[in-house]
């Protein structure tokens, strides 16, 4: 019996949701699943209480039998158990019935989920990499494609279809506040529809073990109002200005001449590497390295100085830089807004 108190308390505690919580219910899908979860939760709590009461009564009754030398012994005759057999039938029937109800509730939720996924207004291709997310907003006109990494901006109140691919191993995209998860499987195309209900900032994380740095594979999700989303999108189409002097220019030159540019892309510059996150607007993001460090001066400096420090095993090599060079590269990265 005393088990039940913490159960209740913990259920309440689960009510306060964070930026990466399936209790957030900030998207239509998440809210539908949340509603189904509530139905399951309360049904199973009632079933659990019922079984526990049954068990408690059995213990009390059994003790009485023992004291009074009552109850059944050995192999009881068939007649003596008639009541119990009826009870078993009723119990099994009730179990089946409850499960059937839950299955039907599941079916209805699933239909609603399918409806909420129809007619997407926007299509985004997200590609999983060890251990970062490549994000590409699709458009028939190639100059209207926005390419970014480790961040996802969505317009509130619209349905977005995310098509999912992987270039290496299996990953899984999970934005619990908005919807359930979907795997990214090499050689296959999968999709996930999102319909955020309101603006907000959420965090997604890879949910399928994908190797050494599975723990540091987050995706920063911003749900903006449609106006703000358009502004962000338009900014994403513009190339950042090439520095004209000072530390930033030195950094720009280092970036183009050292290894950086062979893996990273910065649109409007010769750097056009495609195997590492696109850095065109990296300074406008909130985090770098898939949510590992903040996208600010200290974050850039710490990362470039030794990428293996904060995220050991990631595929970016340490490029030896003098303190002056490091400051220059950092200054350049800060200009990529």
């Amino acid at each position, binding site marked *: 019996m005393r088990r039940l108190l913490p159960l209740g308390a913990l259920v309440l505690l*689960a009510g306060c949701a*964070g930026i990466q919580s399936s209790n957030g219910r900030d998207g239509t899908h998440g809210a539908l699943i949340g509603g189904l979860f509530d139905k399951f939760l309360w049904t199973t709590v009632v079933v659990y209480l019922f079984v526990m009461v049954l068990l408690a009564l059995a213990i009390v009754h059994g003790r009485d039998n023992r004291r009074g030398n009552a109850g059944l012994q050995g192999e009881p005759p068939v007649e003596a158990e008639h009541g119990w057999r009826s009870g078993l039938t009723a119990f099994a029937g009730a179990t089946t019935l409850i499960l059937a109800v839950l299955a039907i509730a599941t079916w209805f939720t699933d239909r609603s989920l399918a409806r909420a996924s129809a007619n997407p207004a926007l299509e985004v291709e997200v590609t999983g990499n060890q251990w970062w997310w490549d994000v590409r907003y699709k458009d028939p006109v190639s100059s209207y494609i926005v390419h970014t990494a480790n961040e996802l901006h969505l317009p509130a109140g619209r349905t977005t279809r995310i098509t999912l691919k992987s270039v290496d191993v299996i990953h899984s995209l999970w934005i619990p506040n908005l919807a359930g998860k979907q795997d990214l499987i090499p050689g296959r195309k999968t999709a996930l529809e999102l319909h955020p209900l309101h603006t907000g900032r959420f965090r997604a994380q890879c949910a399928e073990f994908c190797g050494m740095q599975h723990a540091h594979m987050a995706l920063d999700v911003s749900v903006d109002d449609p106006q703000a989303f358009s502004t962000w999108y338009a900014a994403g189409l513009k190339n950042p200005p090439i520095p004209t002097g000072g530390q930033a220019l030195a950094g720009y030159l280092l970036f183009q001449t050292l290894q950086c540019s062979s893996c990273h892309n910065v649109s409007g510059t010769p750097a056009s590497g495609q195997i590492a996150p696109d850095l065109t607007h990296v300074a406008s993001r909130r985090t770098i390295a898939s949510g590992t460090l903040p996208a600010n001066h200290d974050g850039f400096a710490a990362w470039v100085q030794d990428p293996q420090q904060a995220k050991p095993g990631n595929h970016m090599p340490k490029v030896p830089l003098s303190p002056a060079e490091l400051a220059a590269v950092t200054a350049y990265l800060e200009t990529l807004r």
Partner: protein
Amino acid sequence: MNERPDPREYLRDGPDLTGAELDRRLTETWRDAPGFIGWLCSVDHKSIGRRYLVTAIVFLSLGGILAALMRLQLSGPNHHVLSPDRYNQIFTMHGTTMMFLFAVPVMDAMAIYLVPLMIGTRNIGFPRLNAFSYWMYVAGGALLWVAFVVNVGPDAGWFSYVPLSGPQYSPGKRVDVWAQMVTFTEIAALSVAVSMTATILKQRAPGMTLARTPLFVWAMLVVSLMVIFSMPAVALASSMLMSDRLVGTHFFNTYEYGDALLWQHLFWFFGHPEVYIIFLPATGFVSEIVGAFSGRQTFGHTAIVLALSATGLLAFGLWVHHMFATGLPRMGYAFYTSASMAVAVPAGIQIFCWIATIWSGRPRFEVPLLWVVGFIVTFVIGGLTGVMLASVPLDLQVHDTYFVVAHFHYVLIGGAVFPLLGAITYWFPKMTGRMMSESIGRWQFWLSFVSFQVAFFPMHILGIEGMPRRVYTYPASMGWGTLNLLSSLGAVLFAVSVVVFVINMIVSLRSGARAPANPWNAPGLEWATSSPPEPYNFAHIPVVRDSTPLWSPELTFARGLRVEDRELVMTTVLEAKPDLREPSAQPTIWPLVAAAATTVVFIATMFTPWALAIGALPVAVALTAWFWPKDRGPEGEPVID
């Protein structure tokens, strides 16, 4: 004694040969040779069962140490107790060890020891295969752990999903070690399943019809059949993985017409039944304990048998529910959901039967029955969260989160380890001749029960709050720190409680109260012989008339088995009518030699495929020596057709 008697004058047990004289002669026939070589040659199911049990507990301890390390790392955000590489090895090793080297073998251990005693026979069927299985199991476990110690421990998860575990993303030998360890333990588990199936179907005591067969034996029959149908899937999958890694096949390589999901289908075709392979023997323990301590036959014998069989069948229809997030066709969702939920019906039936037994009987709440109560209270939570996971939309949220970690620890610890600890307490006097300490047992039960809940209940909430599985650390800003700390504290206490249990075993082994043949007044045949049993198990084979033979006013026996040769009675499959007398194998070194040769081949295969071709020869020699008849044996009687 060296001279063979005339065929018609074999010594046989019976009214003229009983008591001390029979004991002396049967012991001479059935005991292992003395000394270390005799120990290596043993084919006695009791010796093998004890070894299996001790080894499984060793692996439980090792797996537990890994769990403690993980909980230390996760007790707060951004801890650096373990490097990500080490952490990934450790969680892979923890899962692999607990599933392949503890949970399945420990249930086999109990069954190998108990089933022949419960059905009234002198040894398990195919005792050499049984001995072979133990050596294979030890070799597989040793391979895995030696590799881990030298930093070649697998790190792609106990499920080894491709392509992460494939040649490109897991170079080196780590995953090969995992795949080959799987091969070892599969061979071990399959060997036990074959022995167990044949033993249960053919060696039950005269009169022990299927309807009178104890529920634990029934559970093992169902489990053995499940092993037979499920383990080939993982053996095949791990062979395909090995060949992708070593000889360049492309089963899972999407760029050469292969497919990554093929691995998941094969793995979970094994992996889901695996859970019931661990759980059903535990329900067998519960059925035995509940009946014995309630002083009445467990209610609903037939219903429980049907529930076991239904669970066994349904388990093969559920593997897809580990793959909901892979983008399966939506059309099938309703089917997967209902099929997965349906398993709750047989589970519910069993729980009702146990509660009804306690209710209507005269329960004595000694330690084994306490574990049963703790089991019901805990397992039902795991069962109900399982119903949640069966629902596709809910699963898409909580899949691969700590919610699932909580769920399967409730099912596997609450549902299988709790009954196991009760079962060890219950049968310890039979195995050792001594009782385990009752007072330590009670304290330890409460410590385990409470600390388990503290360790694992918070994980449900962590999962709902977004914490994924298999992460070596998490940011402080996520707010998961407090619950993780609580969980880690509970885990430490739980580990302490398991240590207390093992200490109780060791101390009781040396100085526990002496146990009579039937210390609990239990009804099963295993209590009809001394504690611990003599090498021949039963001086005379008991004859069974109902399902609680020791509660009957009188137990009668069958006479006529040879005393100077190892002879067993075979009975018919359904009715258990005496049908044949067949010989039982003598002790021999060959299973060990065959296992050693196989081990060399398997390990060498990780380095060159030619090892298979070259190594087949010594294996073939060992197997031929194993099966070649040594002498005329218990033959020479006229053939009666």
